[in-house]
C-alpha cells in the first residue's frame, strides 16, 4: 500500500518587543537567570497583567502578512495546567477567539507553488525555563531542577497551519518560509537555535487517495530546519512501519532525539488533557479598530515571496531568486545598486548568492558596494577578466576601496585581448607543435584543447581563452 503523510506545523514565535507581554520587564536573551523578573511575570500573589500594545500590533502584522483576517474583537483565555516553570500554573493564551484567522502562505514544493492554509495566529505568554540537573535532561530523571523566569511572560505568537503539508521536505520549506516572513517583519529574532522561533509538527499518514485523517502524533524538540525535516521523515517512516505491520498509531507527543535520529514517546498522559480554558478575567476583550489594521497593513514591508517574484521577473533564475530574496538586506541592496549601475541581473544575483556570500562567510569584514561589483561584472562581459581572475579581484575588492580595474591591474590578472599578441603566440605554438597541428587538421578535434593550453601557457595565462580559441581555429583552417 502507498501511504500519504499529512503534516501540520505549529510555530511559536517570540516577539522582540522592548518589554514582556504583560509587564514592564525587558525582553532579552542570555541574561543572568531571574534578573529580568517582576511580581507579574513571577506570578506573585496579587500581581496583574497589562497587555503590551506593541506585541498586539506585531501579531496583527504577522496575521496580515499571512493573509489572515484580523478579528474585530478577541479574547484572552487562561489555559490551566500545572508545571514548575509556569509561575501561575495557567498560561494567558487564546482559545476560541484568536486575533488572526484563515490565512495562507505560498511555498514551492518541487517547483510547484502550493498554498498552505493558516488556521490561526494567537497571542500568548511564554513560560519560564527549566534546567534539569542529572541524567536525561528531563524533569522525571533530574536530581534537581533550576528555574529561570527571564523568559516568563515574553510575548509569543503561535501560528497554526492546516494539515496541508505532504512531505518532510515541504514541511521544512514551509517552516523556512514562515521564518523569513517573521524575520522580514522584524518582529522577532526568529532564531531557531536560540529558541526564538520553535516548530512542532503534527504528523499522520493515511493510505494514498483516502480523505480521512490518520491518528496524529505531535513531535517536539527540533532545533534546526534540518532536524525538523529529519524528525518528520523519521516519524513518517515509523508510522508507515507500524501501520504496515498491522499495528495502530497512538495519539501522543513524541520527542525528537537528534543523536539517535529517531522520535521517542514522551510520558503519555492519562486521557486527553483538559486545559479548562476560560476567559481571562484580569483582561478586557481586545478590540481592533479598522484604521489600526489598515495602518499596519499599509506599513507591511515587501515580503520574501513578493520579492522573489520581482527578481524572477528581472530574469533571475528561480533558485537564485529564492536565495537572494531571503538574503541579508545589505546584500539585497548591493544587488539593487549593481543593477542600477547597469549590471545584468541574472549574473549579479549569481555572484551575490555565490562568490560574495562565500567571501563574507570566510571573512566577516568583507565589504563590497553595488558600483564596484557592477564594474567587476562588466569587465568579465567585456573579456577583460576571466572568471577565475574576477574571483581573485573580488576577494581583494572586499578589503579595499579601490575599483575593480585598479585591483585587476595591480594583481596583473587583466586578460590579454590584443589580437596581434595572441596571433604571434599562436604561431609560435603551432611552429613548435607541428604534429598536434596535423592531428587536428586530420579531424582530431580534442587536440584543440591541448593547443589552447599551450597558448595560455605562452601568454602567462592572461590571454582571453575565447580569442585564443577563435584565432587557433582560423590559423589551423
Amino acid at each position, binding site marked *: 500500500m502507498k501511504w500519504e503523510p499529512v503534516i501540520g506545523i505549529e510555530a511559536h514565535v517570540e516577539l522582540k518587543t522592548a518589554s514582556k507581554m504583560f509587564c514592564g520587564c525587558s525582553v532579552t536573551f542570555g541574561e543572568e537567570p531571574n534578573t529580568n523578573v517582576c511580581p507579574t511575570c513571577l506570578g*506573585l*500573589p*496579587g500581581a496583574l497583567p*497589562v497587555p503590551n500594545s506593541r506585541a498586539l500590533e506585531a501579531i496583527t502584522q504577522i496575521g496580515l502578512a499571512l493573509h489572515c483576517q484580523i478579528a474585530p474583537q478577541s479574547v484572552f483565555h487562561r489555559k490551566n495546567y*500545572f508545571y514548575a516553570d509556569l*509561575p501561575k500554573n495557567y498560561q494567558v493564551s487564546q482559545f476560541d477567539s484568536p486575533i488572526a484567522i484563515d490565512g495562507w502562505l505560498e511555498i514551492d514544493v518541487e517547483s510547484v507553488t502550493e498554498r498552505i492554509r493558516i488556521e490561526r495566529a494567537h497571542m500568548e505568554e511564554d513560560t519560564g525555563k527549566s534546567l534539569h540537573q542529572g541524567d536525561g535532561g528531563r524533569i522525571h530523571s533530574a536530581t534537581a531542577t533550576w528555574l529561570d523566569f527571564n523568559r516568563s511572560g515574553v510575548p509569543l505568537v503561535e501560528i497554526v497551519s492546516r494539515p496541508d503539508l505532504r512531505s518532510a521536505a515541504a514541511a521544512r520549506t514551509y517552516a523556512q518560509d514562515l521564518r523569513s516572513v517573521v524575520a522580514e517583519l522584524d518582529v522577532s529574532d526568529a532564531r531557531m537555535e536560540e529558541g526564538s522561533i520553535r516548530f512542532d509538527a503534527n504528523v499522520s499518514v493515511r493510505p494514498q487517495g483516502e480523505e480521512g485523517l490518520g491518528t496524529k502524533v505531535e513531535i517536539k524538540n527540533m532545533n534546526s530546519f534540518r532536524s525538523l525535516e529529519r524528525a518528520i521523515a523519521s516519524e513518517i517512516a515509523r508510522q508507515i512501519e507500524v501501520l504496515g505491520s498491522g499495528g495502530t498509531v497512538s495519539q501522543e507527543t513524541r520527542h525528537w532525539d537528534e543523536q539517535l535520529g529517531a522520535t521517542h514517546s514522551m510520558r503519555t498522559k492519562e486521557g486527553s488533557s483538559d486545559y*479548562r480554558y476560560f476567559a481571562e478575567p484580569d*483582561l478586557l476583550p481586545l478590540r481592533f479598530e479598522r484604521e489600526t489594521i489598515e495602518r499596519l497593513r499599509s506599513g507591511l514591508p515587501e515580503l520574501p515571496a513578493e520579492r522573489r517574484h520581482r527578481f524572477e521577473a528581472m530574469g533571475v533564475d528561480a533558485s537564485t531568486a529564492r536565495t537572494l530574496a531571503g538574503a541579508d538586506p545589505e546584500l539585497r541592496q548591493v544587488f539593487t545598486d549593481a543593477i542600477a549601475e547597469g549590471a545584468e541581473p541574472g549574473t549579479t544575483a549569481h555572484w551575490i548568492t555565490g562568490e560574495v556570500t562565500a567571501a563574507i562567510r570566510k571573512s566577516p569584514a568583507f565589504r563590497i558596494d553595488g558600483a564596484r561589483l557592477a564594474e567587476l561584472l562588466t569587465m568579465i562581459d567585456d573579456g577583460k577578466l576571466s572568471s577565475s581572475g574576477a574571483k581573485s579581484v573580488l576577494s581583494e575588492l572586499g578589503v579595499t576601496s579601490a575599483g575593480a580595474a585598479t585591483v585587476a591591474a595591480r594583481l596583473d590578472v587583466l586578460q590579454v585581448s590584443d589580437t596581434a599578441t595572441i596571433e604571434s603566440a599562436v604561431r609560435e605554438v603551432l611552429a613548435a607543435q607541428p604534429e598536434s597541428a596535423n592531428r587536428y587538421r586530420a579531424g582530431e578535434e580534442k587536440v584543440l584543447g591541448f593547443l589552447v593550453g599551450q597558448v595560455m601557457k605562452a601568454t602567462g595565462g592572461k590571454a582571453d581563452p575565447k580569442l585564443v580559441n577563435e584565432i587557433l581555429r582560423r590559423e589551423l583552417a
Partner: protein
Amino acid sequence: MSDLADLSIAAAGEGMANGAFSAGELLEAVLKRASLTEADLHCYLTIDHDGARGSAHESEVRRREGTPEGPLDGIPIAVKDNFCTRGLQTTCGSQILAGYRPPYDATAVARLRRAGAVIVGKTNLDEFAMGSSTENSGFGPSRNPWDRERVPGGSSGGSAAAVAAGSALGAYGSDTGGSIRQPASLCGVVGFKPTYGLVSRYGLVAFSSSFDQIGPLAKSVDDALTLFEAVAGHDPRDATSYPGPAPVARPELARGAKGVRIGLVKELAGEGYEPAVAEATTKIVEVLGAEGADVVEVSLPTFATALSAYYLIAPAEASANLARFDGVRYGLRLPGDTVEDMMGRTRAEGFGPEVTRRILLGTYALSAGYYDAFYGQAQRVRSKLIAELAEVFGRVDALVSPASPTTAFELGAKTQDPLSMYLTDVCTIPANLSGIPAISIPVATDERGLPIGFQVMAPALGEPMLFRVAAAVERLAGFSARPELATAGVARP
C-alpha cells in the same frame, strides 16, 4: 475626654489639625485598645508596631511643617491580610502563605501610604477571602465585639471587628460576594463595596478576579467615603481599572433623600430573614418615605438565582487564581518524590477545607463536558441580572434591602453546613455579579442587642447617589449603639 480609639476619622483628623493630640498619641491609644481586645477578638494577624510608629512620627513631622497630606494623614487604619504589603507578612489567612512577605505594595496600600495613613496591621479573614464568618481562617477565627461567642461575619471579619472595637479608626477589606458589607452589618459598622473597577486590584491577592473589589469599613458613612476617596481612581497596573476619574460623591452627603426614587427589592425578604432584620428594614423604608423619598417595591427575579451563579463563577476563577500556590517559588513546601507529588502534598496540607472545596467545585465547573452546563450557564445568569438591573435602574435611583438576612450567629453554627453559610451572602452577591456599588449601614439592633445592617445599591458609577441615600439612612436611623467591650480596662466612650 473619651478614648481616642473611639473617634471617627473625621473627628481624629480635626483633633490632630487643631493640636488636641498628635498622630503618635492617637496611634498609641489604638495600639493600647488592640492590646486589650486582641486576645478576645483576634482581629489582627499581624500588628506592625514599628512600621505604624514610624508612619505616625512622619505624620507628626508633616503636620509640624504644615504639610499634612489630607484627611487620612496620621489616621491609624487596618488592612485585610490579602492586601500585599511590602516586607510585611501577607498570609490571606492561609497556612500556605504563612510567613510570606511580598516584595511590593498593593496599589491601594501605596496610595494609603502616600495619603499619610498609619497602617496598624493586617486583619484576619476567611482563608483567601472564602467564607462569611472568619472561621475559615487558617490562624483561628475572629470574634464579634458585640458578643464574643458570635462571629464577626466575613470574610473581612477582622477589619469589621477592628473598626467596631476601636483597634483601628477605619479599615479596608475586599468584597467578592459580600465580604465587606456582611461583616460590617454583623459588627455594626459601615461597609462599602465600590463599583467594580474604581479601586485597583493590583496587589490584592485574587480570589475571584471579576468580582473582587477593595472597599472601606468605617464608623460612619462620611469616614467610609474618605477612605474610598484615598484609594479610588485609575491604576495603569490593573487592566480592569475604570479609565475615567472616580465619581465625586462628597457634595451629595448632605442632600437628603427627598425626591429620590428608591426600590425595595422584593426578592430579598421572606423566608430565612430574621423578624428583627425585616422590621428594621421596613422602618428605614418608612422614614425614607417620610423624608420625601419615593419608595416602591421592585422585583428582580434573577436575584433568586444570583447565589447559584456566583458559587459557580467565583470558584471557577478561584481554581485558577489559587493554582500558583504550589510550593515551587514561595510559601509552604512539603517534600515529595516528584514535583507533582510535592505540589499535591503542599496544596493538600496548605489549603483548608473550604478553599479545597471551592477549588474542586471550580475545577469541575470548568471541565470539558460540564463547562457549558455550569460555568457557561452561570455567565448567562450574570448577563441576565445585569440586563434586569439596567431596566430597574431606569425606574429607580437606588435599591435597598437588608445587608444580611440575620444578625451575627454563634461560632460553629454554620461550619458543618456550607450551604447555610453561603446563604448568608444572599443579599450582597447581586451587586458583585453585576459590578454595581453597594453599602451597608448599621440602623438598629435586634432583641439581643446585635446590630442590623441596611443595604443601599446604585447603578455602576452611581456612587454620588449611593452616598446621598446612605447618608440619609444613617441620619434617619440615628444608630449610636456601640459594642460593650467586656475586656477590663477599655474605657467606654
